[in-house]
Each structure stands twice: as C-alpha cells, then as structure tokens.
C-alpha cells in the first residue's frame, strides 16, 4: 500500500540525489562556485570552469548515478528472483564474465573504447552459460540457478587471479582499478538514461507481481502470476543492467546488495516504492562514494568500489541495529 511515509521517503531520496549531485559537481581540486555552475547552464561559454564542468565533473557524476541506479535495481531483481536476501547483482557471475572480458582486453592492449565491448561480451557469455546450464532440463529451480551462478563465478574468479598473477606489473594496476570499480574514465550516453527509465517503468509495471513472487513460487502461481515468464524477465533484465553498469565503471561492489536492504528497513518493502527508491539511493551512494574517492587523497584517485563499502558498511550496520531494536 502506498502510504504517506512512502511518498516522504521518495521525496527525501530525490532531495538526497540532488544534494549528492551538487556535492559531487562542486568538489574537486579546482574550486568551482555554485554561481559558476549556474552560469554554466545559462550561458555556456568557454572557460576553464566550464570546461572542467562539462568535460570532467558532470559526466563523471552522471556516470556514477547511472552505475548506482542500475546496480541497485538489479539487486532488487536478483533478491526477488532468488528469494534470497544475500543475492547481489554479481552473484550469478555477470561481473566475473565482464571482468574476464575486460582483463583479456587489457592484456591484448585494446583501446579503452573497445574494452567496453570486451566487458559487455564477457558478461553476455556468462549470462548465457548460467541460464543455459541451469534451465537445460526444463526444471529451472532457484537452487539450481543459484548453484550454477556461484560455481560459474568461482570459475571466473580463478581466471581473474590467473590473469593478475601472470601479467606484467604495468597492466596489473589498471586491472585492479577495473576490478574495484573506477569512474575516472567513465562516460555515459543518452542510451544509459533510457535504460534506467525503462527499468523504472517496467519495474513498476511488474511491481505487484514481484510482491507476490517474494512470498514464494506456489502462492505466486496460485494467485495467477506467470512465474516462468517473470523469472526469465527478471534474470535477463538484471543481467543486462549489471553488464551495462560493469562496462561503465568496472565492478563497483556493495551498492546492489545493501541499497534494497537499507530501503526495506526504512519501510519500503512494496516493490512499487522499492524500485524507484533503489534507483535514487543507489545512484546517490555511488556519487557520494566517488566524490570522496577522488577528493580525500587528492590528487590521488582511489577506486570508487572501496568507498561504496567504506560508507556502506557502517550505514548498513547502523540501520540494521536500530531496526532490530524496534
């Protein structure tokens, strides 16, 4: 039921997103004032501040939001699909496949533009392997899917370690950044926002079915949900979102797992609220984490994935602790 506190939650998250975006745009080694940001949008002239804004800060902030939104929505989908609160977007091996694809690209010395395609191809291969094996005999059970995904991930993990230990030290650094998530080279296009919009609209459209599926397969079938179709849809859309996020930024951990949980603890258990709320909170978390990652030890840039966890872990434990006491 959409209640007043749901609207309150959504509007607070919208405000948080705005603050996060502003914080990110205003922070950095070059001082940029809020007036300069305003004038950037009203009268785009050439100038250092405008150049920094349009070529570095704004694209990076937008990329952070996109990655966080996609991962958080994908986390919601995976948790319903597997009916398991420990599920995250990477649990079924999408990130492993993408990482192996990208690292192969780095080893082959391809340009960063092509690297994206390598990563996406790796994610796609992994998705198809897991789906193909787990649905092979027509009995696509949650346990079978989970087990296949975890085992395939372990395989990718071993390959990643093999790459890391056998390659030259010069490429290891860029590999590690990729594995821990890095937004410094990230750019997003209009297509990415279109994907978020599709995720939101599609997600809200199936939200009531997700509420039912969360209570179990049998009850979902008897209430008239086509669970076979719904699960395939969930699986492929979650995989697509994760694959796109990973190709933008590498594997940014933690956001996909904890964002839905934080929101559920704040009372957003209905997927009609949870899906848009996850997109906003996930995006904000990554923007804030990335801003800290590039400013705290400036001019040194740290991987954003490290900071999503550094901020995420205490926040999560705090909320878990206070919701348990109620």
């Amino acid at each position, binding site marked *: 039921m959409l209640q007043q506190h749901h609207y309150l939650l959504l509007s607070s998250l919208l405000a948080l997103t705005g603050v996060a975006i502003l914080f990110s745009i205003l922070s950095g080694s070059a001082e940029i004032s809020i007036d300069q940001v305003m004038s950037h949008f009203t009268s785009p002239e050439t100038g250092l501040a405008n150049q920094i804004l349009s070529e570095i800060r704004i694209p990076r902030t937008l990329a952070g939001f996109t990655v966080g939104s996609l991962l958080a929505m994908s986390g919601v989908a995976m948790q319903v699909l597997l009916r398991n609160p420990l599920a995250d977007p990477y649990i079924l091996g999408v990130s492993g496949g993408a990482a192996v694809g990208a690292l192969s690209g780095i080893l082959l010395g391809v340009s960063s533009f092509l690297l994206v395609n390598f990563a996406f191809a790796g994610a796609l291969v992994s998705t198809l392997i897991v789906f193909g094996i787990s649905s092979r005999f027509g009995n696509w059970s949650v346990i079978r899917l989970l087990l296949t995904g975890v085992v395939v991930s372990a395989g990718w993990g071993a390959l990643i370690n093999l790459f890391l230990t056998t390659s030259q030290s010069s490429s290891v650094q860029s590999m590690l950044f990729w594995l821990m998530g890095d937004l410094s080279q990230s750019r997003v296009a209009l297509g990415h926002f279109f994907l978020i919009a599709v995720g939101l609209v599609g997600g*809200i459209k199936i939200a009531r079915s997700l509420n039912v599926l969360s209570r179990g397969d049998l009850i979902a079938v008897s209430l008239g949900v086509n669970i076979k179709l719904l699960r395939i849809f969930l699986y492929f859309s979650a995989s697509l979102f994760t694959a796109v996020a990973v190709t933008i930024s590498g594997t940014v951990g933690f956001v996909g797992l904890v964002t839905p949980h934080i929101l559920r603890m704040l009372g957003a258990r209905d997927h009609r609220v949870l899906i848009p709320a996850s997109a906003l909170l996930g995006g904000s978390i990554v923007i804030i984490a990335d801003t800290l990652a590039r400013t705290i030890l400036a001019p040194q840039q740290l991987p954003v994935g490290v900071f999503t966890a550094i901020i995420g872990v205490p926040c999560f434990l705090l909320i878990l602790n206070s919701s348990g006491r109620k």
Partner: protein
Amino acid sequence: MTIKQGECWGLLGRNGAGKTSLLKCLAGIIKPREGSISLDSVPMGNYDRNHLALRIGMLFQENLSGLPATVFETVLLGRYPYRGSLLKDSLEDIQIVEDILEEIELSTLKDRELGTLSGGELQKVGIALLLAQDPDVFLLDEPSNHLDIAFKARLKTILKGRVAGKSASLFLATHDINYVNEFCDKLVLLLENGDFILGNTQDILTEENLSTAFNSKISKFSNGHSAIFFPH
C-alpha cells in the same frame, strides 16, 4: 468424482499418501499423470492462470516468510488477481483486508513483520490471504497446522460460513481424522497403493476403514452426538 457448490470435502490419508499433490492438481499448478480435472465442465488446461486465480485459491504448507513484509502487506496480496490500479490499492480492497484481519484475530499484528510471527500466527496469515482472494473453490492443505484448539474450531465456522454464503466448494486435506469428522460432509479416504474410497463422512469413517488406511488399529469413541477417533 464431482465436488458440487456448497459442499465441504475432506481428503484423509497417511503422510506421503499424495494429498498435497492431489490438491496441486486441483489448483491447476501441476498436471495429473492420469485422468483429467474440469472446472464447470471445462478442462483445467483451457483456463488462463489469472482466471483460475479468481476461481480457485489454495492454502499451502510452505512458509510465506522470506523477504521482509508485514502481515497487512501479505494479506493484501490476496487481492492481486483482481488487477486493481498499478500504483494504488483500492479502498475497497483495503477494507476487505481490514475486515478479514479482524475476523481472523490478526488486527493487532497487522504491522508486524512475518519473520517475527509464531508458526500459528503465520498459518493465520496464510488463511487470511486465502480469504482475501475469495475464490469459489477453497483448497486447504493441512489448515489446522500449528493452530490452537479454539482457533481450529473458529476456522471451521468461518470457512463453513464462506462456503454456505457464496455457494463455494471446499476441499481440505489433512491427516487429522477428528478435524475432517467435524468439518466435512463428504470424504475421500486414501488407502495403500493408490486405492481410495469416497462417500459421506459418516459412512467412510469406520474403525475398519481407518485401520486399513492408516495401517494401525484405530478406535472410535462416541457419545451419541459426536465421535472422536484415537489410535491404540
């Protein structure tokens, strides 16, 4: 075998005799290996899933808890087949759920998380969800599981009232001989190796039939009005 409107049927048999599988066949969730099932003389396969959800509802033994949800949110899912608006739950649906929670004595627990409930309370949530679904055919798998003796009796009254009120049908699977004896007018008794007998409950529930079905000596104690059964 035909289940008519207004009838309450029991399905009695040993653990693992196939009661749940039969109920799932009747609900259209699995297909029977042999034979066929029709609803209003139309084979089950010809109905689409959503239409079936409006006609047939089932109480499962599976646990409803998993991802977090409150009692109210869960019972409201029973209104899913009625396809309300995408974003808002209708006031009518909310009122229906409030009334059912009152009837099932769950009102005080309506904002509690499923994970914090006892086994009996969870069972009541499942029953409330089924009542919210308000089907024409009630299929109940071990409805008395975890319930105390007072609520067991109350549940019987509530369900019989529903069945009589809207000329629904009810089919209840259990291993509890005394519960079907009080509850059901008609009975299917599952015997060893796939055999069964069916008829009026009074005629089927004999010491001899029960002892065969449960492969153990079962005695009947009667005071003229009612009877109870117990093992030796």
